C-alpha cells in the first residue's frame, strides 16, 4: 500500500468516515436543487467567520467611526466588511429559495413538520439578525432604519417595553446592545441550525416524486443503506457547492465596490458602502431606504396608517401561515398541482414579496390608495387562480411528472407581473400603445403558461426495457469525451488559479485597490469549487443516475 493510501486510511479509520451517521445519498440527488440547504449553511458559515473578524475591530461605542476605520485602515477590512454584508444577503436569498423550493415539493409534510417550522423560525431570526447588523454601521440609513423600526414598536403602547430591551442606550449612539443582540440572534440561528441539520439527516433528503409520490416521503432503511455514503462523494460534492457560494459572496460585493454613481434605486441592492453619518450635512441629501430585504415592509407601511394592520399584513399573517402550514395542508399529496390552493398561495407569496419590494424601492414612502392596492394585488391573484384552474396534473404512472422548479415559476411570475402591469396601464391610459404592450405581454404570459404546463404535463418517456439497457452500455464511451474535456478544463483552471494567486500577493491591503483582493479571492474560490465539481463529475458521475 502506498504511503498516501495508508495516511488516508489512518484518518478515515480514526474519523469513522465510512460509517458516519449522515444520510446516504442516491446518485440522482447530486443536483443543486437538493442541496439548497447546504448553500444557506455555507453562506451562514462564511458570514459568521467574517463577522468574527469584524468583531476584533468593531467598537460599539463609536459605530460609524469604527466602520470607517475598518474600511479605510484595517488591512483588507473593506473586503471582509462588504463580503460580510453580502454573505448575509446571500443567506437571506438562499433561505427564501430553499424555503419556497421545499414549499412547492411539499417537504413540510409528514414527517418533516418540525423541520419546516424550525426553518421558518430561522428565517425570522436571520432577518432580525440582518436588521441589527445593518444598524451597526451607524450611517444615516442605519439610523433611519432603526428609527422606523423603533417607531413601529412605539406606536403600539403594549409593545413599547421592547424598546429598551432591543435598543438599550441607543439614543446616545451606543451600539453595545445592538451588537450583543446581533451576536445572540446569530448564535440562536446556529443552535437551531444544529437541530434543523440533524432532523434533516434523520429523515433524509426528500426522495423524487417518481419514487415516493405521497407523504410520508422517506426512504426505508433498506433502500437507504444502498446509497452513497457521506464520505467521499457527498463530501466532494458539498465542498464544491460551499466554495462556489463563498466565491460569489466574495467576488460580487468587492466588484460592486468599484461601481459609482448608480441611480438611487439600485442602491439598496448594489451598494456595499455605508452612507454618510447621520450628523453630517451630506446626510440631508440622501434618500433614506431600509435594507432591501425589508423594502416590502417599508412599502406596506404606505398602505395604512394603522400599525396593527400593517404588522398583520406584513409580518404576522404570512408568518403564522407558514408556521401552521404543515397542519392546514394535511393531505398526503406531494404534487404541486394536486394541492392547488397551497401552490397558488406560494406563487402569490413570491409574487407579492418581489412586487412589493420593487415597489418600495421605486416609490418609497409614497402613499398608496385602497384602489391602487386592490389593482396591484388582485391581478396576480386572478392570474394565478385562472392559471392553476386550467392546468391539470397528469397521471403519475404513465407520464413523467416534473414539478415547477422554483426558477421556472420565478420566471413565470416575472412574466405574469409584466402582464399585470400592462393591464393596469391599459385601464389607466387606454391607448393603442398600451394595448399593444398588453397584447405583447399577454401573449408572453400565454406562451409562458403553455410552456409551464408542458413542463408539468408532458415529457412522457417510453417505459421500455430495451432502449434503457442500450443507453447504459453506450453512454460510458460518449461520456468519455466529456470527461476528457473536464480534465483539460481542470488543468486550465489550475493554471489560472496559480496566476491569480500570484497576483493576489501584490495587492495593497488598504486603499482603493484593496477590494481587488476580494474579487480575486472570490474567483479563486469559484474556480476551486468548479475544479472539485469537475472532479466529482469525472470520478463519481455514473452514466445513468436513475431515480430510485
Amino acid at each position, binding site marked *: 500500500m502506498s504511503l498516501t493510501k495508508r495516511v488516508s486510511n489512518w484518518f478515515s479509520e480514526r474519523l469513522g468516515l465510512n460509517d458516519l451517521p449522515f444520510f446516504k445519498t442516491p446518485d440522482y440527488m447530486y443536483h443543486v436543487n437538493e442541496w439548497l440547504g447546504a448553500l444557506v449553511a455555507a453562506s451562514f458559515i462564511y458570514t459568521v467567520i467574517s463577522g468574527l*473578524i469584524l468583531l*476584533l475591530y468593531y467598537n460599539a461605542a463609536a459605530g460609524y467611526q469604527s466602520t470607517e476605520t475598518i474600511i479605510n485602515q484595517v488591512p483588507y477590512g473593506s473586503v*471582509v466588511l462588504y463580503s460580510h454584508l453580502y454573505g448575509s444577503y446571500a443567506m437571506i436569498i438562499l433561505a427564501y429559495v430553499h424555503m419556497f423550493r421545499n414549499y412547492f415539493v411539499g417537504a413540510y409534510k409528514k414527517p418533516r413538520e418540525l423541520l419546516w417550522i424550525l426553518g421558518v423560525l430561522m428565517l425570522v431570526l436571520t432577518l432580525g439578525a440582518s436588521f441589527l447588523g445593518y444598524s451597526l454601521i451607524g450611517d444615516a440609513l442605519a439610523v433611519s432604519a432603526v428609527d422606523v423600526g423603533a417607531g413601529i414598536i412605539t406606536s403600539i403602547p403594549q409593545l413599547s417595553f421592547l424598546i429598551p430591551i432591543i435598543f438599550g442606550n441607543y439614543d446616545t449612539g451606543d451600539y453595545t446592545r445592538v451588537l450583543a443582540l446581533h451576536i445572540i440572534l446569530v448564535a440562536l440561528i446556529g443552535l437551531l441550525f444544529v437541530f434543523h441539520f440533524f432532523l434533516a439527516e434523520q429523515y433524509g433528503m426528500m426522495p423524487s416524486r417518481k419514487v415516493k409520490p405521497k407523504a410520508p416521503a422517506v426512504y426505508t432503511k433498506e433502500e437507504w443503506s444502498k446509497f452513497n455514503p457521506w464520505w467521499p462523494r457527498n463530501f466532494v460534492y458539498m465542498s464544491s457547492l460551499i466554495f462556489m457560494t463563498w466565491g460569489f459572496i466574495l467576488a460580487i460585493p468587492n466588484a460592486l465596490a468599484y461601481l459609482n454613481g448608480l441611480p438611487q434605486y439600485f442602491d439598496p441592492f448594489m451598494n456595499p458602502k455605508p452612507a454618510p453619518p447621520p450628523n453630517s450635512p451630506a446626510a440631508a441629501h440622501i434618500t433614506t431606504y431600509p435594507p432591501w430585504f425589508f423594502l416590502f415592509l417599508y412599502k406596506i407601511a404606505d398602505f395604512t396608517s394603522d400599525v396593527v394592520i400593517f404588522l398583520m399584513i406584513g409580518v404576522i399573517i404570512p408568518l403564522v401561515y407558514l408556521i401552521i402550514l404543515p397542519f392546514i395542508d394535511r393531505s398526503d399529496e406531494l404534487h404541486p398541482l394536486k394541492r392547488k390552493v397551497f401552490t397558488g398561495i406560494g406563487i402569490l407569496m413570491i409574487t407579492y414579496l418581489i412586487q412589493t419590494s420593487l415597489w418600495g424601492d421605486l416609490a418609497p414612502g409614497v402613499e398608496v390608495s385602497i384602489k391602487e392596492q386592490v389593482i396591484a394585488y388582485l391581478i396576480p391573484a386572478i392570474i394565478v387562480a385562472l392559471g392553476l384552474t386550467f392546468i391539470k396534473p397528469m397521471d403519475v404512472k404513465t407520464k413523467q411528472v416534473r414539478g415547477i422548479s422554483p426558477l421556472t415559476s420565478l420566471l413565470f411570475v416575472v412574466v405574469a407581473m409584466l402582464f399585470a402591469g400592462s393591464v393596469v396601464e391599459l385601464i389607466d391610459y387606454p391607448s393603442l400603445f398600451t394595448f399593444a404592450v398588453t397584447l405583447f405581454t399577454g401573449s408572453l404570459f400565454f406562451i409562458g403558461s403553455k410552456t409551464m404546463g408542458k413542463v408539468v404535463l408532458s415529457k412522457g418517456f417510453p417505459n421500455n426495457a430495451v432502449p434503457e439497457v442500450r443507453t447504459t452500455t453506450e453512454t460510458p464511451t460518449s461520456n468519455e469525451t466529456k470527461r476528457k474535456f473536464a480534465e483539460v478544463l481542470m488543468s486550465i483552471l489550475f493554471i489560472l*488559479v496559480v496566476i491569480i494567486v500570484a497576483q493576489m500577493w501584490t495587492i495593497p491591503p488598504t486603499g482603493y485597490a484593496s477590494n481587488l*483582493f476580494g474579487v480575486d479571492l472570490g474567483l479563486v474560490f469559484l474556480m476551486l469549487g468548479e475544479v472539485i465539481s469537475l472532479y466529482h463529475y469525472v470520478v463519481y458521475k455514473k452514466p445513468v443516475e436513475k431515480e430510485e
Partner: protein
Amino acid sequence: MPLKIRLGNGEKGVLKTSDLYFIQKLLRTMRNPKTRFDSREFVEKGEDYLFNYVGKNVGGIDEGRRNFLKGIVIGVAAATVVGIIPGLRVLVPPVEQATGFPKSLLVDVSGNPLKASSIPVNSPIITLYEYPLTGEPNFLLNLGDKSGNPVSIAPVEVSVPQTGKTYKFPGGVGPNNSIVSYSAICQHLGCTPPYIHFYPPNYVGPSQLTAPEPNTLTAQALLAAKQANIPALIHCDCHGSTYDPYGGGAVLTGPTQRPLPAVILEYDSSTDYLYAIGAIGVATYPEGSDGVPSQDPTKDLDTSQYGSSVGSKTQVQASTNPFSGS
C-alpha cells in the same frame, strides 16, 4: 477502425472504434486470473454486478488518472490557501504611529478654542486633555499663590532621581506665565486621576491627613511642600508620590523616582489661544510596563499602547472635583 455493415447502398455503423477497444479490453480483463469475472455472482446479482465490475476494472477512470485529478484538486486547494495567506493580514491591527508631536489647539467641550485668560487659578477641579495620543491625559493648571493670584513660573532645571540626569523645564505660559501642563499618569505605577490630582493651597494642610481617598495627603508630602516653600502640589493617593507643579513636576516625595513629564505649551497672545506642541522629560508612563519608561518622550509615540494621535485639536475637560464630596 469502426465496424460497419453494408445494407444495399448505405453503410450502417454497428460499433464505434472506441466501443471495439472497450470490448477488447473488457474481454481481456474478464479472462485475467487476477480480475476474473465471476459468472456465478453475475447470475446471482444480475446486471448490478456487471456494471460494478466494469466500473471497477475497465471503467473510465483508472488509478493513475484518478490520482492525477486528485493532484489537480489538491493543487488548486493549496493555491487557494496560498492566496488566503496575504489576507490574514486582516488579523494584524493597523498600528497608529504618530510621526511626531502634533500641534494641537486646546478647545473646550463645545469645541471653541480655550481662552488662556479664562482658566481659573488654583482650580480644585481636575482639568484634563489628551495629548499627544488619545488615552494619554494631562493636567492643565493655572498656578497661583496662597491668595489666588497667578504666579509666574520660571524655567527650571528638573532632575530625574532614577538616572541622575536633568532636563530644562521651559516654565509657564499665558498672560501671567502661570499656565503649566503635566502628564496626569503617575510615574510610579501609572495611577490616573482622580487618584493623582492637584491640591490647591487651601487643601494643603493638616486637615487633609485624615481626608478620605483620593484626597489624603501624607505627612511627608506636607513636610516636603513646606520645605520647598510651595503653596500647592500634585499628589498621588495610590502610593503617596508627590510632585512639585511650580518646579516642572519635580519629585517631592517618593516612591516615584521620576518627575512628571511636562507638555510644552505655546501661547498666542493675539488670540489668547493655547497650543500643545510637544513634551519634555521622561516618556509618558506606559500602561502595563515594568515601571521603567523610556527617557525619551518621543520614544513613546511609536510604541505607545494608547490610541491614535489627537490631531490638530484636543478637548479640555474639567469635570471632576475630587474635593466636592469631602
